[in-house]
């Protein structure tokens, strides 16, 4: 008896001795878990702050208040008011003349060039379209805000270090001096960059916008939805409710699982080989992009729709069958309506994934330089994520902030789609 007591005491002593160590390892283990989560949290914080801090400045654009005299001698010396002639007029000269009124001392060719490149090269095109819209402006002095050149804008935003030697930076000492003088006269200010949302791509950062890419992405998503949603839902209904258990159906199931796991770039190869080379569809067109993305989203929608169908309790089916409904009636009149919100939720999340996808689009030529905003799914176009990719590669300093801004726009739309999905789920979700 005393022997066993002794043993018990021994054991508890052993246990107690080990206890501290065990508690410590318990604490450490828990600590690792917290660290893991913190790792992800910290990454997200760093990630978003890095993107936002790089991108927020792209939403404003430095502009210069200019008085430009629309000299008739330059625009239309023969007073013909002929559109073709006016198109070829030298509007650059008007801009330069106006700038020279501030800095009359400028004379050499180099200085003229530097002075002219204070403002965006799009300024003369803007004057041109103003004049073409309204001939009565000719001969008048107009007072407008014009966009500064991207390099100047970068300087104003503090992205160019002027303490470096002149040869090591993109703007000259003269330009720095002129800009400072203009600033002292309160002629320069940072205004909202509406171009970012109203223009297509451009080689000049200050003229570039994401509208073309947005419209291209929109066309693609519509095609994706039209093709993938009905097909995916129908396939899900068949597999979940009607499919017999046989080898053919097993084969279909294996195929769907595989499709869901195939790397997206392979879908791009499919698009290139089948849609473009075999069917001869146009390169760079949202139609092809939409079809490729539809094939990619198809298995996602099937899987989501099947989950939605499964979540409908069997009692509903049993009750419907019990009162004499046919199988199809049961499914379409009772199960499907109950599962539809879940299907839509899953599909929207799948479409959001498709919106962010760019690898397959690179394969089908959606990386071309397209300025015009597409008007139909057959026009050449970019897509939002591809625009991010293109801008990330562009050499101009001004595109760094615009890339981040395009990312913010992309993330905004993703957030919008996902929150729509969550809203749908919360609104229509039935707790059984």
């Amino acid at each position: 008896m005393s022997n066993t007591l002794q043993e018990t005491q021994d054991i508890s002593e052993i246990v107690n001795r080990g206890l501290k160590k065990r508690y410590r390892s318990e604490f450490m283990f828990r600590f690792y878990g917290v660290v893991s989560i913190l790792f992800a949290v910290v990454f997200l914080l760093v990630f978003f702050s890095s993107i936002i801090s790089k991108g927020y400045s792209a939403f404003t654009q430095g502009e210069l208040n200019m008085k430009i005299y629309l000299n008739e001698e330059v625009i239309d010396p023969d007073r013909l008011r002929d559109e073709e002639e006016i198109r070829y007029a030298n509007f650059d000269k008007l801009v330069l003349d106006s700038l020279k009124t501030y800095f009359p001392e400028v004379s050499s060719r180099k200085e003229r060039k530097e002075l002219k490149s204070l403002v965006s090269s799009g300024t003369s095109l803007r004057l041109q379209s103003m004049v073409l819209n309204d001939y009565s402006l000719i001969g008048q002095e107009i007072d407008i805000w014009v966009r500064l050149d991207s390099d100047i804008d970068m300087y104003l935003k503090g992205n160019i270090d002027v303490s470096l030697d002149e040869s090591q930076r993109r703007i000259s000492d003269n330009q720095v001096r002129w800009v400072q003088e203009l600033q002292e006269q309160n002629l320069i200010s940072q205004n909202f960059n509406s171009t970012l949302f109203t223009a297509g791509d451009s080689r000049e950062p200050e003229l570039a916008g994401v509208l073309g890419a947005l419209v291209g992405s929109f066309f693609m998503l519509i095609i994706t939805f039209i093709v993938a949603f009905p097909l995916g839902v129908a396939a899900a209904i068949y597999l979940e409710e009607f499919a017999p258990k046989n080898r053919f159906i097993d084969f279909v199931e294996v195929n769907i699982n595989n499709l869901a796991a195939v790397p997206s770039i392979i879908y791009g190869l499919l698009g290139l080989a089948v849609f473009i080379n075999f069917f001869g569809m146009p390169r760079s067109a949202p139609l092809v992009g939409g079809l490729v993305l539809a094939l990619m989203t198809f298995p996602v929608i099937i899987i989501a729709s099947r989950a939605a169908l499964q979540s409908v309790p069997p009692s509903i089916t049993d009750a419907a069958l019990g009162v004499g409904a046919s199988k199809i009636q049961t499914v379409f009149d009772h199960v499907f309506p109950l599962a539809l919100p879940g299907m839509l939720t899953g599909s929207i999340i799948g479409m959001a994934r498709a919106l962010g996808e760019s690898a397959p689009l690179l394969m089908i030529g959606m990386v071309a330089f397209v300025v015009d905003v597409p008007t139909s799914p057959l026009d050449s176009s970019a897509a939002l994520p591809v625009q991010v990719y293109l801008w990330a590669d562009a050499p101009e300093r001004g595109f760094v902030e615009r890339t981040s801004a395009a990312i913010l726009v992309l993330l905004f739309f993703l957030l919008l789609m996902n929150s729509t999905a969550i809203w749908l789920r919360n609104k229509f979700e039935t707790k059984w």
Partner: protein
Amino acid sequence: MSISLFLISIIFLGFLSFFWGKRKALLLKNTESLHSLPRYYGYYSLAWFAAPSLLIIFLWLLFSESFVTNQVISLLPESIRALSPNEITLRMNDVKNLAAGNLIAGESFIGLEQAAANYNRITKLVQDVAIYSSLVLSLALFIFSYRSISGKLRARNKVEKIISNLLLASATVAIFATAGILLSVLFEAIRFFQIISFDDFLFGLTWSPQMAIREDQVGSSGLFGAIPLFAGTALISLISLTVAVPVGLMTAIYLSEYAPSKVRSYTKPMLEILSGIPTVVYGFFAAITLAPFIRDFGVTIGLDIASESALGVGLVMGIMIIPLVSSLSDDVISAVPQAMRDGSYGLGATKSETIKKVIIPAALPGIVGGILLAASRAIGETMIVVMAAGLSARLSFNPIDAVTTVTVQIVTLLVGDQEFDSPKTLAAFALGLTLFVVTLALNFYALKIVRKYREQYE
């Protein structure tokens, strides 16, 4: 009649045919007993009405363009028809631009206006024929179906037959898609292997896919040994897994075993955000923010880290797949029966001991399956590596070197250069085939493990 008007009237008439069919059934109900519910008679008439219209619209979309073009060409002046077929397509582009009211190039040829007018006329004619024939046919078939409606008509069975066939057809699209992928990749890959031997591709140690594109160009014998690419892919995937597996697994364990529900409710959406960020954005982050940081860090500790180091790419890719690992692990961990935990606690084990000694061993097959799925995701990932990894196919296992991957090479080979008969372009498809087979095998195996594991505890 314009197309949109036609479509609207088809939709309208479709509704009408449904209601008429239903109405007749409702009327019949007074005199005889119906086999099906009245609305099925409506669907029955609708199906008869819609089928020919859909078929004709489909055929019209498919063939109208080429038919009209051929007709217009046959009406062109002799001098133009004598040109080569390619020249004629150019002239036709002119005609179509004029016909569509687009800007034309200015120079016109004799008969251009005439041809454009012909083009519009014939297009209109074909369109009218299509529209009216489909309307007439639809109406005729509708009348036929309407007359055949009787109490004995097994309308529901017929309609249901159509519906289930449509459903089956949708499900088989998956097979077509897989077949399409396999064939498109396989076909080009076979052409590649006719030029470059299979062994050279799979076991060659040098990847330098430069091919002279003109005969008189010198240098550049193409070498297509893919081992450096496989090694680079493996290296980057390995780094990403060493980040994602511990973090993802610990996150899952913490969330399912320790975390109070409040922490869970905040952490889960955060992980969802992590998985929702587009890969191109991860790539941008890796290239612009992380890679320079790692490089500078390397400089401070005296290491020469390449700016496209596998380390930076792998790190970001690892973060990208954390949510995948964590959600898959979460699933398998919560599938471990509570009884096993209770048994362990009953013996006096602490929570962490239970997790380490009971739950993880029990969930191990499922976790391994999850890791395999994550690996296949990492191998197939494209944008992050395209933007942040290098192009130099170096055979190196040093994480601070720049390596290249299979997906990067596919993109480089195919973007821009669209030549389809050179081994250089075809190599992309051979790489694609390899990628397809490897990810397929990984997934197949992983899903098998996970399924087997689930069955074990169900």
